[in-house]
Every structure is written in structure tokens, then in C-alpha cells.
């Protein structure tokens, strides 16, 4: 099968979804009003609430939601063949993610630009807020563990990417400083920074001395490492420690010093990446060698496919961005359709190219089957396959393969590092918020909160024995990451449904994806937690069992709450809020 045709088919469905389905949802379901005074106008303060042009807002919204997750999920999920992954990305984006991202934006705009957490408290009471807080907490913990491992893995597999990634840090600080203190424009300096990074990448790819290969330093794969670990495990340990120390500092510094200018440079990388991959696809015109389905899978696609691809099909994290920042900057209510729905489409396009990069990488179906022999192989090798596949596409533009792999690895590491930075920072805020809520003063201290955050993440990534040996605990919990992300999306869809019900509008458009998500999540959780990780399971693991059980209880709790909410139990509470 020709990959360009698949890409065109996918994009055509996205286009139809945007053109017709989102229009239907905007006009008939959410009933957006162009004359509604949005929070951006009502509370315009020049900081958080600023009316913004819809195209600019879309760009910002998209770059906030796009990260390493829509690349990683599909790269693993093609294990079940490219067909299921493709269909879930396409249909998930059009029918679930678009409505979810768009809906959270519209809901927040109609609720003073408040975030989903605050709206949950308003709609379902304190229980809703606590539920929400804990799910976000577990979600962030998993992001930390997964991405710390992902970055360490890429550093070990592509040692040439280390120096360019680390060069970015001083460059970002320099740009942040000159922009903030000297009011300089950021565009040109950030482009120069990007050029320096890619220059360093080319140099490092050519000159082996510049490749920081820890495994090699310890005498190759069979060499002795530290603390009695093997060389590879030691390399993971060292990289993960360095990363965690780095995020400690990155998340306690003011945002403008490091995080913001780094994001600025990384946004260029997002554009460069997408452009190179889609242009490369046109020039290389590759054939898909992966099978359309995999009948010999050792793990069933149902329900795990829907958990493995979260971002790229539907992700609760998007609701946080929609209701956290984008809703405060929406100029007109009708812009929500473009910003929210088309933002999800952008993410779908990223996931689509991730699928294509992986399924066109191999020379034959046999090679693909060898690389994707088991789900564990797929989980561990998925991202590296994406890097190789993407480099192959970039090769169509005349970029040498070893340079292309280094640059793609840098792009993925940068995305993952941004997610890691942001999530450690957010988690520290939540730990502090819990401290305020329960009067534990120590938790409100920045450094205490960060130490707890980083410590818990380190424990999660280092303690469980993953399929790839020491340090791969992050990969084991990837399905858990998907689950909590989907749960979050489930809550948001529930809140939108309650909102629609309150207005007397048919809410099937949000209820059906919610039921679907909840069913798949519970199903996946049940098989994973009770049949795999419990004491009588095949793969007993106390830590994951406890963590999984907590999320499972949350899921059941949400479903009970959902039934209560939709049967009108919280109507009095809502009325009380409305009167206030």
C-alpha cells in the first residue's frame, strides 16, 4: 500500500470532520454565539485574559498540546498492524478528540474561563475536585517516569544527540535573559539557537569524539557498570539521575528564564519536524511494509489499542490546555471551533505521520514482524523505530541518514524534555495546593514540593523491574499513563454532558465517546491490574498493582458520579452556584 495515499485518506477524513461534523457540533450542540462576551473581553487584564486572533491562538494551542506522546503512542500501537492504529487516530480525532478539545474550550468560555478542575468542583462538588486533582497527580507522575526513561533511552541509542540537546540549555537562558531584561525580540535569536543546535548535531554525527556514549565508556554492552549493574543499566541510571537533577532546577526557576525560551526554540522544531516529514513523504513516496493487521499478537488490541494511543486520538491533557489558557484568550465564542477542534486535528496529523514513519521503515513485512515480535518489543523499540523511520523520510530531502537520525532524535528529546519540565512544575504546584488544602505548611515550600515530586518520579522509574531491565519502569506504566489520560478526558466529557443537559440540549455527541472511553479504560485496567500485576497474576508487581488499583477505583468512582450527575443528583448544587 502506498503511504501517500494513506496520508491523503487520513487528512481527507480530518478535513471532512472539521468541515461538517465540527460545524454541526458548533451550531446544533454547543450553539456558539458570535455576540457572546468572552472572558478575554470581560476580564481583559493584559496578562491572562487577552483577546487573541484565532489563527494565533490556534498556533499556540497546537504547540502546547503537541509533544512526544502523539509520536510514542502510535509508534507502539502499530504492533497490531497499521490498520487499527490508523483507524483509531482518524476516528478518535474526528469523533472524540475534536469534540473533547472543542467542548472543554466552549465550556470554559461559558464559565468565566475557569479550568476544568474548578468547573468539576462547581458541577459535582468537592468530590469532583479531589478526584480531578488525584488523577492529574498520577498522570503527571507517569509523564515524569515515562519521559525520563524515553530521553535516557534516546541518549543511549543516539549518543550524537546529547551535546546539541545540552547546548540548548545555556542558549535558552541567554535568549530568555535578553528578551526579558533587554526587551529584545526572540524570533531571530531563537532561530540562531536552533541553527547552532543543528550545527552541533551535524558535527557530533560526523565526529565520534563528540558523541557522549556512556555505554561505550563503560566498556560496551557487556562492560561492568556502577553499583554492580551492567553497562546499559548504569547508563540508564546516570542519565535518569542527570535528567531528574536538571528538572529540579528547571522547574524551580522562573518560567521566563529557561522554560519559555526553550519552548520557543522547540516550537521551531515542531514546524521543522512536521515540514520535513510530510515533504519527505512526498519525495520518497514509500510503500507500507507493515501488515494491515497482526493476527498473531500476544496481547489483544482490544482494549489496549485505545489506551496505547491517547494523545493523537483523544487526550484529557488537551482539556487542561483548552480550559487553562486558550479559553481566557478566545476573542469570539465561535472561534472555539477552529482553535479547539482544529487543534485536535493538528495533533491527529502529527500522530498520522508517526504511524507512517514507522510502517514504512522496514524493507519487508518479515523485517517488521521481527522488530515488532511482541508487545514488549514494540513498547521498548517503538520510539527508536520512529526515529529511524522519520530519518528515512527526511532522507528524501537529501539529508544524510546519520545526520537525519540525530536531528530527529533531538526533536523527540526536546518534545519529551518540554513535557517533563512542564509536568514536574505542574506536579509541584499540585503538591503545594494539597498542602494548602490540608494545612500542611511544609508542602507549600517550593523546594519541599519539588523534592517530593522528583523523588516520587525517581522511585517510579527506578524501582519497578521493566521489560528492558533496570530503569524501564516507565515503559511498564505506559498503559497506565494512557488510562489516566483517558480518565481525565472522560471527566471532561462528563462535565460537558452535564453542561449540555443543563441547557436542555441533546448530549449524545459527548456522552457516546465518554461511555466508549470509560468502557475501554475499565476493561484495560481490569486485565492489566488484576490479571497481570496482582499477587495471583502472571506478572506480579506490588507497586504497579497499588497504583493501578487507585486509578481503577477512580474510574469506578467517576462512572458512579457520572450516573448520579446525569440523573440530576447535583442539580441543586449547580443551582446554588448559579445563584451565587
Amino acid at each position, binding site marked *: 500500500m502506498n503511504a501517500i495515499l494513506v496520508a491523503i485518506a487520513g487528512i481527507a477524513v480530518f478535513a471532512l470532520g472539521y468541515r461538517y461534523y465540527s460545524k454541526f457540533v458548533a451550531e446544533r450542540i454547543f450553539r456558539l454565539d458570535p455576540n457572546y462576551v468572552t472572558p478575554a473581553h470581560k476580564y481583559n487584564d*493584559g*496578562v491572562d485574559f487577552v483577546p487573541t486572533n484565532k489563527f*494565533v491562538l490556534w*498556533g499556540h494551542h497546537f504547540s502546547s498540546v503537541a509533544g512526544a506522546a502523539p509520536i510514542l503512542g502510535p509508534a507502539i500501537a502499530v504492533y497490531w498492524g497499521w490498520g487499527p492504529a490508523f483507524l483509531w487516530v482518524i476516528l478518535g480525532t474526528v469523533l472524540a478528540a475534536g469534540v473533547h478539545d472543542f467542548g472543554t474550550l466552549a465550556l470554559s468560555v461559558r464559565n468565566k474561563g475557569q479550568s476544568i478542575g474548578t468547573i468539576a468542583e462547581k458541577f459535582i462538588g468537592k468530590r469532583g475536585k479531589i478526584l480531578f486533582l488525584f488523577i492529574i497527580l498520577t498522570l503527571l507522575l507517569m509523564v515524569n517516569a515515562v519521559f525520563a526513561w524515553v530521553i535516557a533511552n534516546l541518549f543511549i541509542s543516539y549518543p550524537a544527540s546529547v551535546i546539541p540537546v545540552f547546548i540548548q540549555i545555556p542558549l535558552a537562558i541567554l535568549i530568555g535573559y535578553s528578551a526579558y531584561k533587554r526587551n529584545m*525580540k526572540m*524570533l531571530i535569536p531563537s532561530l540562531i539557537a536552533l541553527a547552532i543546535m543543528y550545527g552541533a548535531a551535524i558535527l557530533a554525527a560526523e565526529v565520534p569524539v563528540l558523541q557522549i556514549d556512556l555505554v561505550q565508556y563503560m566498556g560496551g554492552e557487556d562492560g561492568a557498570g556502577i553499583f554492580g549493574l551492567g553497562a546499559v543499566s548504569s547508563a540508564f541510571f546516570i542519565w535518569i539521575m542527570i535528567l531528574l537533577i536538571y528538572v529540579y532546577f528547571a522547574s524551580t526557576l522562573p*518560567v*521566563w528564564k529557561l522554560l*519559555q525560551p526553550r519552548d520557543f526554540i522547540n516550537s521551531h522544531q515542531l514546524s521543522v519536524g512536521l515540514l520535513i516529514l510530510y515533504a519527505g513523504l512526498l519525495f520518497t513516496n514509500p510503500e507500507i511494509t507493515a501488515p494491515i493487521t497482526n493476527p498473531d499478537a500476544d496481547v489483544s488490541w482490544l482494549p489496549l489499542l485505545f489506551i496505547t494511543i491517547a494523545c493523537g486520538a483523544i487526550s484529557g491533557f488537551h482539556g487542561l490546555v483548552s480550559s487553562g489558557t486558550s479559553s481566557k484568550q478566545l476573542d469570539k465564542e465561535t472561534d472555539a471551533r477552529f482553535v479547539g477542534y482544529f487543534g485536535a486535528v493538528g495533533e491527529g496529523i502529527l500522530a498520522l505521520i508517526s504511524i507512517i514513519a514507522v510502517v514504512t521503515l522496514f524493507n519487508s513485512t518479515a523485517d517488521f514482524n521481527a522488530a515488532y515480535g511482541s508487545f514488549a518489543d514494540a513498547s521498548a523499540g517503538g520510539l527508536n523505530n520512529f526515529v529511524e523511520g522519520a530519518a528515512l523520510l527526511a532522507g528524501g530531502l537529501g539529508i544524510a541518514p546519520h545526520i537525519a537520525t540525530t536531528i530527529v532524535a533531538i526533536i523527540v528529546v526536546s518534545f519529551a524534555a518540554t513535557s517533563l519540565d512542564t509536568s514536574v512544575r505542574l506536579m509541584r504546584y499540585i503538591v503545594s495546593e494539597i498542602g494548602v488544602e490540608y494545612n500542611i505548611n511544609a508542602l507549600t515550600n517550593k523546594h519541599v514540593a519539588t523534592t517530593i515530586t522528583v523523588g516520587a518520579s525517581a522511585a517510579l522509574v527506578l524501582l519497578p523491574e521493566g521489560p528492558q531491565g533496570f530503569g524501564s519502569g516507565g515503559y511498564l506504566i505506559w498503559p497506565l499513563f494512557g488510562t489516566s489520560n483517558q480518565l481525565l478526558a472522560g471527566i471532561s466529557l462528563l462535565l460537558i454532558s452535564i453542561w449540555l443537559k443543563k441547557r436542555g440540549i441533546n448530549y449524545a455527541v459527548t456522552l457516546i465517546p465518554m461511555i466508549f472511553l470509560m468502557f475501554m479504560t475499565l476493561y484495560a485496567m481490569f486485565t492489566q491490574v488484576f490479571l497481570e500485576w496482582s499477587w495471583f497474576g502472571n506478572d506480579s508487581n506490588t507497586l504497579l498493582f497499588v497504583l493501578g488499583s487507585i486509578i481503577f477505583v477512580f474510574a469506578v468512582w467517576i462512572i458512579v458520579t457520572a450516573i448520579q450527575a446525569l440523573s440530576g443528583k447535583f442539580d441543586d448544587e449547580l443551582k446554588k452556584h448559579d445563584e451565587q
Partner: protein
Amino acid sequence: MLESVKKLIRYYEEVLEMPHRTEVARELRDEDDLFLLLLYSEMIGIPNPVYYYTLELYPHIIEDFHDWHLRMGMEKSPLTGIRCC
């Protein structure tokens, strides 16, 4: 052609500048709030040795003060001495 490329670059720059502009505005606003606290500290019971000199600044920052108490969720000025609204 050149005009549309320029427009595209302007758009691109605006997208990327957006979060940064917010963050810088927030930092500046926090600094202003601190400054405001120093000026009005006497009114909330913190002794201020240069109170008489800072009095002169009141007319210049009265608008900022108004924005501040609105932002803090107070519809009317919380300080009886300052009647901005």
C-alpha cells in the same frame, strides 16, 4: 508574494511570542504589586519610614491601584483613604 511571506513570518512570530508576552507581563505585574504593597504598607499597618514621600506618587498609581483591587476580586476600593471608584 514577498508581502505574504512577510505576513506569514509576522504570524509565526506572534504565535511564538504569545506565551512569552504573557509571562513577561505577569512578572512585571508581580513587581508592580510588590511596589504597590511598599507604597501602601502604612495603610495595612506596616510602618513605612518614607510614607510622606511616597504620598506624592499616589496620583500616578491610582489607576493601577484600581486595576489591582478589581483583579483581587474587590469591586470597591478596600482602603478608605483611597477612593478610586
